[in-house]
Structures are given as C-alpha cells and as structure tokens.
C-alpha cells in the first residue's frame, strides 16, 4: 500500500466551510486524513491539539480520526497524559 503523501498535500488546506460538520462526513474523511496525520506523527508523538494545529483541522475532528486510527492499529497512546491533561499519540507499526 502506498500511503505516503507527496509534499504540498492537504496540510495547508483551508478549514471546512461548515464549522460543525456532520459526524458521518468527518468519519468518512478518516482514510483521506490518515496519511497526513501519520506524516506529522513521524516527527514524534503529539496530542490532539498539536495534531490539529499541524494539519489545520479542528480538534474534535482529529479526535474522530485519531481514535479510528487507534482502533485500527495505526497509532497508540503514550500511557501517561501530559500535565495539561492530554494524551500523546504515536504512530505504530501496523500488524495485519
């Protein structure tokens, strides 16, 4: 599977026009956003707000994608939360 995005991919895209997007629509974007999230996690583990800032998307949408990616074995949390109360997530080798 070729999952890596080339440079200049969706990182700098404007935020969606609908501020509170339908859950179904956000979730549908998981496959589309996965490569981009893994790209930013390649530098090291990040919290949801940090990922959101890196990819320019709202935090609540990132929660859907990160938790989906966690469920399907692309990322895992670091056990202890930060002092600010956020868990960090890191890319993990995926077992198939």
């Amino acid at each position, binding site marked *: *599977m*070729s*999952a*890596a*995005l*080339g440079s*200049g*991919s*969706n990182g700098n*895209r404007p935020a*969606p*026009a*609908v501020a*509170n*997007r*339908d*859950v*179904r*629509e956000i*979730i*549908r*974007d*998981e*496959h*589309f956003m*996965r*490569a981009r999230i893994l790209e930013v996690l390649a530098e090291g583990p990040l*919290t*949801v*707000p940090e990922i*959101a800032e890196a990819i320019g998307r709202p*935090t*609540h949408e*990132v*929660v*859907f994608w*990160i*938790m*989906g990616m*966690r*469920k*399907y*074995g692309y990322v895992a*949390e670091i056990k202890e*939360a930060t002092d*600010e*109360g*956020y*868990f960090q997530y890191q890319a993990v080798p995926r077992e*198939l």
Partner: protein
Amino acid sequence: MKYDALVVGSGIGGMESALKLGDMGYKVLVVEKAPSVGGKMILLSKVFPTLDCASCISTPKMAATIHHPNIDVLTYSEVQSIRSDGNGGYHAQIRQNPKYVDEAACTGCRQCEMACNVAVPDEFNADMVSRRAAYIAFPQAVPKKAVVDRAGVSPCTHECPAGIKAHGYVARVRSGQYDEAFELVLESTPLVGSLGRACYAPCEEQCTRGELEGALPIRQLKRFIADRRYGQEFQPSPEAPESNGKKVAVVGSGPAGLTAAWQLARKGYGVKIFESAPQPGGMLRLGIPAYRLPNEVIDDDIANVTSLGVEIATQTRVEDAQGLLYDGYDAVLVAAGTHRSVRLRVPGEDKQGVTTALEFLRAVKLGEDVDLAGKQVLVVGGGNVAIDAARTARRLGAGSVHQASLESCDEMPAHDFEVEEAKAEGITLHDGWGVAELTGGERVQGAELKRCTCVFDADGCFAPEYDEKMRKQLECDVVIVAAGMGADTEAFGLETNPNRTLKADPGTLQTAVPQIFAAGDVVTGPTMITQAVGQGRRAAFMIDRYLEGTELDPAAFEEFLPRVDKLEVLRRQDVYDRREPLESSETMSAAPIDFAETEATMTEEQALDSTARCLDCGVCSECHACVDACPADAVKLDMRPEEMEVDVTSVVLATGFKLFPADAKPEYGYGRYRNVITGMQMDRLLAPTRPFNSVVRPGDGKVPDNIAYIMCTGSRDATVDNPLCSRICCMYSVKHNQLVMGALPLADVTVHYMDVRAVGKGYDEFYQQAKDMGAVFIKGRVAKITEKEDGNLIVRYEDVEGDGGVVEAEYDMVVLAVGVQPNLEVAGLFEEGSLALDEYFYVGEADEDIDPGRTNLPGVFVAGAASGVKDIPDSILHAGAAVAQAAAHVEKLKAKEEPKAKEESKAKVTV
C-alpha cells in the same frame, strides 16, 4: 419450519426468554436485527448496583443462546410480519439479510475490517468512533463473524456499462492505494488508460455528489491511477494463469475484442486476436484523435493483454469466421466494430476532396501524410466523430474549419462540452443546416447548405425536413463527412440484421453458430467505449461457460444489488460541507497547432481531494480489499437476501426500547457542543471495549477535570411529550459517577437532578455510596448550556436547595442522562392496529398487575422493556413471566391437538 416460540429481539429480555423456553424443551427461533445477539446490555460498562461487569454477565448468556440445542438464532435478520394461522399459532415472515460473508468459513480474524476502505460511524460505540463497512460488531460479538454493510450498489458503479467498480477504485485512491485501484479496474478491462481519457463517464452523470456542488471526476481518477502505474519504472506483470488447453480466436482488437481477450486469457485460454488494421486498438487507435487519446496510452493498455500471452495478428483480415473453427479454435468471438462509413447521399459526394471522417481520422492517427495547410474544410455531421474530425483538421493547419449539422446545438449527438471545446478552438458551427449539394468541378469547391427544420419524426426516428428555400453557400476545398458508421459484416458468413449488424442473442451474445459469439459495436451498432467493453466482458463470460459445458444463463453474468437511492444517501447527513469540484484542466487554444493532450493528468493532491468528496453511497464500495485480505476466502459479495416463512405456536416480543435523541433538547447543545455527550456514550467510554483510550473529551481529547450530569433529559418532560420517568437514568448516572471517580480520581462529578429515584434492593445505598465518594448532587433543573471557546460548558440552573436564584457553573464535560422511548417498530409486525399499545406506545399488557407479559393477542407475549422501561433484573423477571405464559399457551394448544391427532391416527389404522 415449525417452532414452539418465536422470540423477536435478543437483548437481555429476549435471551432470557429463549433460554428459559429452550431449557423447558421447547423449540425456539430467535430473530435479531443486529449482526450479534446481546442487545444494549453487552454495550454497557458495568451494571448497577453491583458494579459487575456487563460483558461478563452477558457473554455467557449470548453464547448459551447461540449454542443451545433447542434454540435457532437468525442474526442480521428481520421479522417482517406476523399473522395468525387461525389455530392459535402464527405465521412469521422473516428476511435474512445477506452478511456477504460465509459464516462457516469466517474465523472472526478482522482482516477484512482492517483492510476495508470505507469508514462510517460505529453505532455500537454510540457514533463516537468509526467502524468499517466490513466489520465485526464489537469484540464480544456472538457470533463473532464479519458482515459487510451494503446499502445497495453505488450509482456510479451501477451506471457503468463496462461493469467497472467505480466507487471501489475511488475508495482505493482515497486510501492512497493507487496500484490496487488500478488492479480493481483491471478486473473488468485492460483499457484503464484509454477509459481514463476517452470514456464519456456515465458514472459521473449519476454521482450523488452531483446533487450538491458537482460530481466527482471519476474518469480523471482512472486516468490518474493509469498514468501513475504506466509511469512506474517497474511494471508489475499480471500473473499468467495456467493454460486450460483451449483456444479462442477474437476478430477485432477494439475495446470489446481486447476486453474479451483479456478476460479469457485470465481464465487460461489461449487467445489470438485478428486485426485487419496495421495497428491494434480498433476505434481507440483509428478513431480517437491523439489530443484525446495518445497512441502510447493505447500501447500501454494493450501491453496488459499481451503480457498474458495473447497474440495479436495485425493486417490480418478474417473473411470467414467459421473457418477459424476449422483452424483449431474452440470458439470465435467476432468484435469487428463499425468501420464502414455511412454515405451522405447528396450530389457531388464523389468529387475529389470529399472524404469520410473515419478515413480521415484513421490516416492521421496512423501517421500518414495528411496535408490540410491553408485549406478550407467543411465537416458534415453533429456527432462526436464530426467534432473529432473538425478539431483534428484545425490541428493540421486548415485555414478555416466549418461544421454543418442538421441538429441545432442543443440536439447534436455530440456532448455539450465537446461542442464548446470545438467552438473554443475556432471551429465555425452551422447548426440546423444540411448539405443540399457539394459543388465544383472534379474537385469539390463548395457546399450548398439548406435549412433543416426538423431532424426527427414524432416517433424519434431520423427523418429530416428542410426549408428548401433557405439556402447558403460555403466555399471549401475539403469536405469530411461524418454521417454515421455501420458494421461491415458481409464477409463473415453469419446471420445479420437489416442494418448489417450481426445477429446475436442479447443475453448470451451467441450467434446462430453455437461456437461463434459476437460482441461490441458489430452487434449493437456504434456505442460508447464502455458499452463495448461491457459486451466484451459478457462475451468472455459466455464463451467460458460454453466451453466449460455450463448453461448460458444471461442472469448469471452480473447480478447487481439494486441501485441505492440517491435521496436516501443525501438524507444520511443533516449538513454537508461544501467541497468544490475539481476545476477543468483543459487548455484550449483558438488555433491549436499540435496533438498534445488538452487535458492534464490530475495531481496526487487533486486526486485525494476529489476522492474525499465521495459520499460512499452504497456504504461498501466493492473495492474488494476485504476479498483480497480474507485468508479464509469467506467474503461473498454475491450473497442475496433470503425470505422465509416459519410457523410458530407462540411469539415473545423482546424488542426493547429506544434512547431519547438528545438533540431534541436543543438548549443542551448536543450535537453542536462536542463535549456534551449522552449517558450511553459515557457508558461506552467507561466500558472495557471503549472507543477511546480513556475518558477524554470528544472535543479535544483532554482528560476532563469536572463533569456534570443532567438528569431527566427527555424524561418527565412535557416539552418532549414524555411524562414518564425512565427509571434507569438515575441509577446509571450514579453508576457512572462511581466509575468516573475510579477512572479519573482527580475529577469532580456534579449531578443536576430533579429528584433521585433509587427504588430497588441496594439502590439507595448505591446512591449514598456515590455521594460518599464525592459526587455532588444539586437539585434543580438545568435551563441551558452554552459553550466557551475552549470547549468548556456553562450550565445555567436554578439553585433550588442552596442560596436560590439562577446560577451558572462551568464544566469540562456534560453528560445528558437521556431517557427511554418505546420502540414503535414492533406494532408494524402485526396487522395494522391488532397489537394493542398502551397510552405511551409501549406494547400493552392485558393485565400488567396479575398477568404480566400477556398482550391482547392470544399466544403473543411481551418480555422486558418492550412493555415499558425496566432495568436489567426487572427485564429478566419479566421475561420469566412472559415465557411461563408462552409455555402454557403452547401446552394448551398441544393438549387440544393431541386428541385430534389420536383420532386421525386411529382413523388411518381403521382404513
């Protein structure tokens, strides 16, 4: 099939009913809509007041239900109707929905789920995370088998005459699986690059996104994956299958012939294609100009075919199709296309300088010397071929290019965009004009045009009418006639239609000579490339069956599920983000000078952005990732629903309840404020199989420091037409309080309540325990919640017991203790109005106090929360009461039937 009892629903009430009846020795059928038994209880974290693990209690009952010798269970199935048999029993009509997975083969390994390319909200996790279209409902599912969620066939896929899984390759591209997307198209045809450029994309006309901002560029995505594949240094070769020893001859190397050859070669046939032209490709090579379809792309597509060992003999005209059988071929496919030009039949047509569009385009595409520099060219015709000829003439340096068509611009058979492109390239259109005569000496020097007033008659048949008085003259040196194409079939010695196309059965494509099949334009007349490809696929399928000795059944070729309704798709979301369609990359020149492609291949970013617009109409995209991933070959996308009727002596309705939709209280902001969740969502967050790694806010992943509960959300509330207490909300909230304080020892928990109803053994003690652990209970109904920028929530309430007045408190997260509603679907199972409901629309009990579980219908009983909200112990008790009565009913009928049966048996002996 005959059962003593039908149990509808398999929550705790249904499972208890079935198990008790089964243990008594009765034969029971359980029907469950979900893919797993277990209902809502299996999704809970723990149960109150014992805080026992809900999974630990449920799973043994789930397993016992499935494996009980007296119980049959149909999951993913629906009872459609129940009607009396007139003898005290019932007939039940049941629909078993296809799981698209062979349960016997499925090992529950989740490989399909891990590979699936479609993400949808996970209803088993209260929509807090995604699941896949191919999925196992939850980790403790019983049976632990995958299902594939298919709402129907996506409109794009359904529309493709070639049978290409359009939605499937779009989904593959979205996941970055470009090679796999290419391979998916190859399952239908080797012409990935050609279709990516020259297909008229009927799929896009049907794209549901077209009802919003515009369709997906499905064709261009195919071009993207083809160009990416063909641009790779290393081209993975398709695996050549083992030869089956049989040979098939294919006459013609156009889209139908190449596709059929490809499909047959993949099945192990030795295939040889006979092509009369100097180069293979048929109309792709000879008819479509290079600015739309370069020869290199056709070469790449054909290399797919030849890499499987298919031979192509060019400049080899087949005169006698049957003769090929004598040459040792087991079957022959004639796919010779329509390469005969239709004449204009006007005076002057035989003058020098008059040619046909097919001859002209063929000469240019094959690189022959065609000099139009400075010439005045008239193209006659209004179809796509005429447009291609006109634009080609422009590129060859013609001084002027005019195009005359009988039809007006609106009626022209050419696509609108092609007409616009022709205009942009400086072609002068004379729409609504026909040729009266071509003038000049030996060589054409001009054309006299006459006004066409009507092209088709009332039946839609071609019958042009003219205003003979309205005429105009055009000077021209060259006339290119594009008046239509026909099949040239005389030489084949096969039966033909009046229009000279070959006669073949439309379903099997077999001709009157059993070993000879015919496909593509030579059968249908001129059509689109995709239709010819579809014919090629069908022909290959039928030839294979014929040579295997299998019946030629047209229905066996491709049986689609029904097309999903676009309106249903659009109704799945309340709002849609506006996502702009891809802008056209066509670069038009008013005076084009070469045959460079006018459209660019989309970039990777454009491809991904475009696929992100896909609405996954059919849910499953048919990308076949699950099929490829399954180690047990268990995915069977050809499964179809099964209808069955069973006779049952009694019915137990255990259809449970619905949760109050929290967004029906808009003042609490559910659905708008991301950190406002429901009680069920908190139960999922606290469950061992939770959707998140911990209790964190859905809004930003933060561990909450203080959490508020708002009781009676949707219960005891006249504003939402529910005066009833939902009974379970107080205690499940108290349960949460304790679990949250266990999971997040530093978190504060506050409960806003009207009054706490803790009626039941140990319930009040359980409530006191929560208070002792630190939960704060504030009496007073919450009026409103507002959200701060940081996602925190301001809860506004009246402080009834404290200092009074309206108070605002800030929390990290708010849990709405949503109430319970009746499941209205149950009444629809019976003849209208026959099953009595109570005043709150729960299943009515004839006498709740002394006869619990008995409905107004003899032999029909209700168990658990279907008759009114109950907690788990009460549901179990109620199920016991219901099945005791069901058993009594069965026995009563048996007692009635036994003497009858004895008499019948005696009578037989006497006879």
